[in-house]
């Protein structure tokens, strides 16, 4: 399994292929559409990251020392962004998730989505992912 750092570099390389925002957004939309479906039973209130405009359900479970994340959103751009985060942080160890740098978000041109006024600020999603990592840290 690749490290978080390696995955981030892969993602940066993929996004570097796009010349303009349209291609970048189309790719995010594609990622959103290909995000594996979350089990419906996890689309519940306590898994909801509430934003101003769109909803994100994020579920985490422990599997062989790693955290596995699944998610869904009612907005496709938001879903694409959470797909990027899941690819980065799923199947990783809690400590690695906690220590991970998230500066790659800037590099792939999604800085505007860091704003809390965007549908569901990336900041809230990253925060929630890290909170799960804290909660699921081995003693």
């Amino acid at each position: 399994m690749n490290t978080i750092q390696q995955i981030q570099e892969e993602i940066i390389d993929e996004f570097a292929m796009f010349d303009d925002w349209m291609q970048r957004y189309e790719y995010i939309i594609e990622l959103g559409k290909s995000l594996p479906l979350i089990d419906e039973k996890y689309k519940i209130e306590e898994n909801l990251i509430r934003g101003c405009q769109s909803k994100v359900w994020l579920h985490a479970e422990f599997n062989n020392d790693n955290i596995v994340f699944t998610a869904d959103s009612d907005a496709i751009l938001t879903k694409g962004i959470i797909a990027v985060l899941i690819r980065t942080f799923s199947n990783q160890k809690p400590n690695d998730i906690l220590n991970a740098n998230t500066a790659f978000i800037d590099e792939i041109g999604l800085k505007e989505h860091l704003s809390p006024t965007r549908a569901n600020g990336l900041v809230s999603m990253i925060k929630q992912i890290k909170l799960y990592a804290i909660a699921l840290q081995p003693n």
Partner: protein
Amino acid sequence: MKFDIKKIRADFPILHQNINGKPLVYFDNAATSQKPKVVIDAEAKYYNEINANIHRGVHYLSQVATDAYEESRLKIQKHLNAKHNYEVLFTAGTTFGINLVASGFGSLLQPGDEVIVSHLEHHSNIVPWQFACERSGATLKVIPMLPNGALDMDAYKNLLTSNTKVVAVNHISNALGIINPIKSIIEQAHKVGAAVLIDGAQATPHIKPDVQALNCDFYVFSGHKIGGPTGTGVLYGKEEWLNKLPPYQGGGEMIKEVTFEKTTYACLPHKFEAGTPNIAGGIVLGVAIDYLNQIGFDNIAAYEHELLTYGTQRLNEIEGITFYGTAAEKTSVISFNIKGLHPYDVGAIIDKLGVAVRTGHHCAQPIMQFFNIPGTIRASFAFYNTKEEIDVLIDALKKAQMMLN
């Protein structure tokens, strides 16, 4: 006066810029309006030449600032056709004005009393009344809406009883642009002895309200939606009601005499204007109102109606479009969704094409719950917008639809 759109657009410096590499198309006017150069210059002039605290200073600048501030109050009095200048209170905006009135009623209401709001309200005209009801034990009732976004006036009639003490409704819905029949709402409320507060935040950019003709007890609006500065607003209140309501905040100008045993309050409007107000904002708000009056509200209404008609007609070209708020009496706000697309996705994509619209629940969640939708895309036009800009919106929406499908 001839409505010269080129000349009007030249008054707004902000409109002439590129956003994301595209010429800005600003259709988020219901959230806040752009400011004409006279307003921007007046704000600078105040701080460059006048800045001083008001009402008490004996020095020259304090006198000039006080005169300018009170002159602005007179302009607003005239604009609203209020009976007295002291019935015009400067506030920080619509939300502040409603909270001031609702807080006062929180002390006047009793268990068994009823407050009526409508299903079309934004949160600022719901939550303060919920506070007032919680504090007093009064009950909050809601005028239902019809599927076309109009208020159910028959149901309203049935809600009114001798227990109704306050009716608080908006003049125009921010989420749907529906113009409510406030004259009739006020008349019926008065028959049962209730006071009526009209939230004019969305009306004042389009309509010149006549508070005496309407016979409302309170009328509130925000400066920033009518070309004035943010953090400014007005609460009009009938003298008799303003005298009945307790002060909202203590300190500064609102006192007559203070001892540790007892404080007496200043007369109107100072009773409700504690502390140093937004002096520059209050003065500049008068400049913004002058500007709008110079263009003329009849001209504004006629031109915006053209934009509304053209916008609705062109939006009809979008496959799978659903409009929300289709009642006949409407201002230049179009709220819609496109089948299968989340409003946020559409808003984010057309932003990249330079088009600014509002998406979401517009701080009016009960309306979205009524339609069972997460939100809408809202294009709200002002008198400085053009049909050509609507064309840009349509192209942007078609592109967004293509990308998202």
